[in-house]
């Protein structure tokens, strides 16, 4: 195990491109995400508790729960971190690919980098799979039966809903355009198991993806996307989210010199870690909620 949960939360930066880019999405999910700094602050914010002895007990129980590998919280953090770093790597490749298309002397990059849209679709679908698996690692499968479970999933809020908003905007809408869900669906449904096993992004997280082999795992990734696309399509239309609106909001926080959406997407991918950042916050919140109930 690398870091404890209090270190992970204490070390979340309170400024920088990730924080600014999340602030820029506040208009989509108003008040849900907060720039929380420090483990104690998070305990107070989650529980509303100000009694220091109680905060100490909650923190100690949360640390113990996190440190027990059997509880699954560490695996969830690993998934958020790994799926995030994959995004960064693919982002760099996608940016290089775009340069390759427009600058002739760099055209050799075409040969070693994937098409940007393909890289993006893989990045997106793997983040979706990681989100689903991490959810189960953190929360179990709560409720008696399917209806209660769907109610639990439908109650996404705080940093979790912000993560899905960022996934929608930064990994879908901006890089792939308004019909991003259809584009991703086309790509994902056309995959064969070999596409996945030869993909470095998939390889990094494959040990955590259920399915008992590449074919089953491909099925999991496809089903994962299918399970989220309806929700996400409705999220975009009901809130009237557009790429231009998001970029306009980003410009209030970050100096974006270029309006070309591909470059904005590549820039965000290479410079932000929203998936990891909000993932650590989600794990922290759930641990604290459980800890205060168990002490």
């Amino acid at each position, binding site marked *: 195990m690398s870091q404890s949960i209090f270190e992970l939360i204490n070390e979340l930066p309170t400024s920088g491109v990730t924080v600014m880019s999340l602030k820029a999405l506040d208009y989509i999910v108003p008040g849900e995400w907060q720039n929380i700094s420090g483990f104690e602050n998070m305990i107070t914010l989650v529980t509303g508790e100000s009694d220091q002895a109680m905060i100490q007990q909650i923190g100690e129980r949360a640390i113990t729960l996190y440190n027990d590998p059997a509880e699954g919280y560490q695996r969830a953090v690993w998934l958020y971190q790994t799926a995030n770093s994959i995004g960064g790597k693919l982002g760099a490749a996608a940016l290089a690919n775009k340069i390759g298309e427009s600058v002739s002397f760099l055209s050799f990059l075409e040969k070693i980098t994937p098409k940007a849209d393909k890289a993006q679709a893989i990045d997106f679908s793997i983040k979706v799979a990681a989100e689903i698996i991490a959810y189960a690692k953190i929360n179990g499968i709560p*409720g008696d039966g399917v209806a209660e479970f769907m109610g*639990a999933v439908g109650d996404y809020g705080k940093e979790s809903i912000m993560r899905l908003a960022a996934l929608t905007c930064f990994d879908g809408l901006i890089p792939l355009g308004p019909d991003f869900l259809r584009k991703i669906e086309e790509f994902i449904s056309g995959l064969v198991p070999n596409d996945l096993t030869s993909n470095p992004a998939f390889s990094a997280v494959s040990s955590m993806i259920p399915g008992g082999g590449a074919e089953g795992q491909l099925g999991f990734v496809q089903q994962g996307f299918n399970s989220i696309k309806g929700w996400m399509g409705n999220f975009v239309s009901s809130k009237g989210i557009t790429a231009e609106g998001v970029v306009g909001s980003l410009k209030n926080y970050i100096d974006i010199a270029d309006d070309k959406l591909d470059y904005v997407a590549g820039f965000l991918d290479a410079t932000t870690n929203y998936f990891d950042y909000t993932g650590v916050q989600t794990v922290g919140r759930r641990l604290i909620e*459980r800890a205060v109930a168990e002490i």
Partner: protein
Amino acid sequence: MTMTKYLLRTALLLCVLFVSLTACKKEDPRWSEADKKSKEAIEAKKQAQESGALPKPEEGGSFNKFFPKNEPGFEMIASQEKTGFAEYKLKKDGKDLAMIAISDVANNPQAADKFKSSTKMIGGFPAVDQGSTATAVLVGGRFQVKVLSRDASFSKANREAWLQKVNLAGLAAMK
């Protein structure tokens, strides 16, 4: 040009090294000790459960049926379900009011200690208040049922009332 690039790279490398070194050295005295102790505690608990000195916790799913789910005007949303733990969120008009949790103290035996000095009973079981947001009962010496306020309007009296809506007798009869 080459020299500039070289210097730039060296500077970048130094930055990365500096950041990673400082990141590794960050200590938080309030939690570092607990972090170290927790690893021993996890191992000790595992061994105690394997030897039978400590009971194995019940499945969290086995607690679901004891939660109050049909209270008109209120919503109960399943929140977490782990070994020895199940938690629901109580909502009204879309607002979070409270969390209601059942936990098996086999997961955290010292949680039962505070009930030894309990001065009141709720639903026939020893009860305690914790901090400013929590009220709990210990059922059958084994299961802790706790209601946690998540909104200022949800008072201690509300917590006590909702504790009694949990099927405490059913939970006590479990096992």
